[in-house]
């Protein structure tokens, strides 16, 4: 008995000696199984490379993300590196939670060399950069090859322009005797990805811009044609409507919608559902291509200083390395944020169109994404449910959204 105790004590002593001198940093993210597994794997690789650093990986449900982080700040028990949605950066910075990435390690040149252009803008707040993504998401056009065949369209040729999109959508739409849509040519769901398409894609294609350069002023009301194009799909061409089959994802997955504009995060689910689908770049218009990109990024918290900060910088750089991005695409299915890595997959029939879209993508700087999404949802609803003109509706939307922006920018004193 005594001997066992001695052995146990020796082992414990050895273990404590081994961990002595190690720097421990804490990484927080919300629970999403594939992401959690991927990060575990990445941490193992990282610790092989830097044996003196130990990374503790903590996860919690998505729903309690902000509450959890909020409670940990004053207590000083929070993470050193936190994974957060890029749209939350302003709030986290103004609440004194994140520290800017050290300029010496993450210079403009470093960002330009390693990331798509929209990333630098997306992680910047009032002149400083705060986080780096592993992977990004963008939009593309999904089309159902079987339904194309059925409508006597070439199943390998998706629409390339907005005009073609409308023509094909019309051919792909089916109605019952009363004129109800039973198969939508194109799913239109502003509450899904539709609001991004209107804001960052259609507005630019119709010759405008959704916001001014630093996202403090709403400017999309200058191009009501963008909203009109969208609502015409519902009211004039009648190829779909918001809420058809409950939502666009259900409609496309149950093969009741022939086309849909959706994000790269949908690929896995569609493959699992066994849909015979193709992916194409978003249709262009007036020779203008545009896309919307978004991402989750890793930022360093204020609590992290000294040798922990050095370790955190190393881990952050490792997380944004080419190797990790490749692993992330393979395991999680999200797109690499580095153009050099992305280029390797340009010929992939599924990932290619999303990756090409990243070249000309914009990451909207949201100050309150749910409220701003609601503004565009309401703009569409006012037109198709209330018969208000797109001009008037876009103007009202801009006023409401401007108030949201003003409130935020006033609160941070700009």
């Amino acid at each position, binding site marked *: 008995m005594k001997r066992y105790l001695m052995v146990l004590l020796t082992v414990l002593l050895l273990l404590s000696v081994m961990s002595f001198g190690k720097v421990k940093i804490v990484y927080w993210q919300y629970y999403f199984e594939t992401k959690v597994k991927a990060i575990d794997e990445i941490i193992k690789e990282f610790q092989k490379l830097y044996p003196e650093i130990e990374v503790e990986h903590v996860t919690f449900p998505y729903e309690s993300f*902000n*509450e959890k*982080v*909020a409670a940990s*700040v*004053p207590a000083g028990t929070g993470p050193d590196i936190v994974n957060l949605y890029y749209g939350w950066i302003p*709030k*986290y910075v*103004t*609440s*004194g*939670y994140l520290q800017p990435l050290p300029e010496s390690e993450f210079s403009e040149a470093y960002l330009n060399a390693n990331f798509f252009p929209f990333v630098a803008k997306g992680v910047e707040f009032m002149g400083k950069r705060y986080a780096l993504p592993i992977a990004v998401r963008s939009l593309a056009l999904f089309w159902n090859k079987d339904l194309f065949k059925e409508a006597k369209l070439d199943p390998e040729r998706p629409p390339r322009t907005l005009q073609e999109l409308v023509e094909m959508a019309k051919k792909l739409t089916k109605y*019952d005797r*009363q004129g*109800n*849509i*039973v198969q939508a040519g194109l799913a239109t769901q502003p*509450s899904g990805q539709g609001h991004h398409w209107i804001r960052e894609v259609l507005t630019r294609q119709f010759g405008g811009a959704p916001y001014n350069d630093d996202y403090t002023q709403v400017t999309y009301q200058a191009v009501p044609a963008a909203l009109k194009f969208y609502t015409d799909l519902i009211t004039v061409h009648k190829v779909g*409507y*918001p*809420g*058809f*089959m*409950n*939502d666009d994802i259900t409609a496309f997955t149950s093969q*009741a919608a022939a086309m849909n504009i959706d994000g790269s995060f949908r690929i896995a689910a569609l493959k699992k559902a066994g849909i015979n689908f193709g992916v194409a770049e978003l249709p262009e218009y007036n020779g203008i291509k545009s896309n919307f990109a978004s991402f989750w990024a890793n930022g360093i918290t204020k609590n992290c200083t000294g040798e922990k900060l050095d370790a955190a910088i190393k881990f952050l750089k490792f997380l944004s390395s080419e190797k990790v991005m490749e692993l992330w695409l393979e395991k999680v299915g999200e797109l690499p944020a580095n153009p050099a890595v992305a280029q390797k997959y340009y010929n992939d029939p599924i990932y290619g169109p999303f990756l090409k879209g990243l070249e000309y993508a914009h990451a909207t700087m949201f100050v*309150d994404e*749910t*409220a701003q*999404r*609601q503004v565009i*949802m*309401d703009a569409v*609803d*006012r037109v198709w*449910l*209330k018969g208000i003109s797109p001009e008037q509706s876009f103007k009202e939307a801009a006023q409401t959204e401007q108030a949201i922006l003003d409130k935020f920018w006033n*609160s941070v004193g700009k």
Partner: protein
Amino acid sequence: MKLRHKKTLTAYLFLLVPLSFFAFIRFYPMISAFYISFTDWNIISPVKNFVGLSNYVNIFKDPVFRISLLNTLKYVLYGVPSVIILSLALALLLNNITKFQSFYRLIYVMPYITPLVATSWVWRWMYQKPPTGIINNFLNSLGLPTRSFLMSTTEALPSIVATTVWIEIGYCVIIFLAGLQNIPKEYLEAARVDGANRRQLLFRITIPLLNPVIVFLSVMETIIFLRIFTQVYNMSDQGSGGPLNSTKPLVLYIYQKAFKSFDMGTATAATVVLFLIILGITILQLKVLNKKVQY
């Protein structure tokens, strides 16, 4: 120490647990909500700046708050009388049935014991337009025009009320049945001997004697409809309370301000307003409806 004192002390000792539970879990958050409503707290910031009454001024300037307030009153106004009248009628009918009464009771209580999220989604699908919605497919097969239900700014709120009434009836029927079975048969028999017809029996004997039950249920149902949330959250697109805020109740407004916009000051100010409304209506109902009936 006297025995009486000892007994009181023991009682307090045992009451300490539930009392402290109420103090910390119920009253402390309530008081802290009052305090937050005078600040500009954004959930993740460690500082709470005192801003006086400006949150209250702002919510009454906010058209969405006013719409939500109006919608909440509509839910109560449409919902409570419908639930009370329908469940009373059903209870009176069920009370006459002697065979399989418990079976019928079970059927009526089913919607109430089913999780609210599940019933909301089933109804959401039933309300869909063709080709998915059962109700519209039925109308369609009869050659009748289909309806928009949840996709219309005028039909969505009544559609959600209908679902909620369907759910709440189960609970109210059970309570009404219990109340009916408490009415002494002698009263009804005596009235019948005196030549009262069925109408008179109902309005002169049964309903007055059911008054305590009616008061209880109206208060409960009013509170339930004032706090309506789950149904709307699950039956509107992305839990938005749409289309165009036409179904958004106060609680959803509070939820969105607190946990989507992280504007805790505004959210708690709206909560305080809702608290005052519930308090006011409840006191009013107890005063007006609670008349003692003695025979």
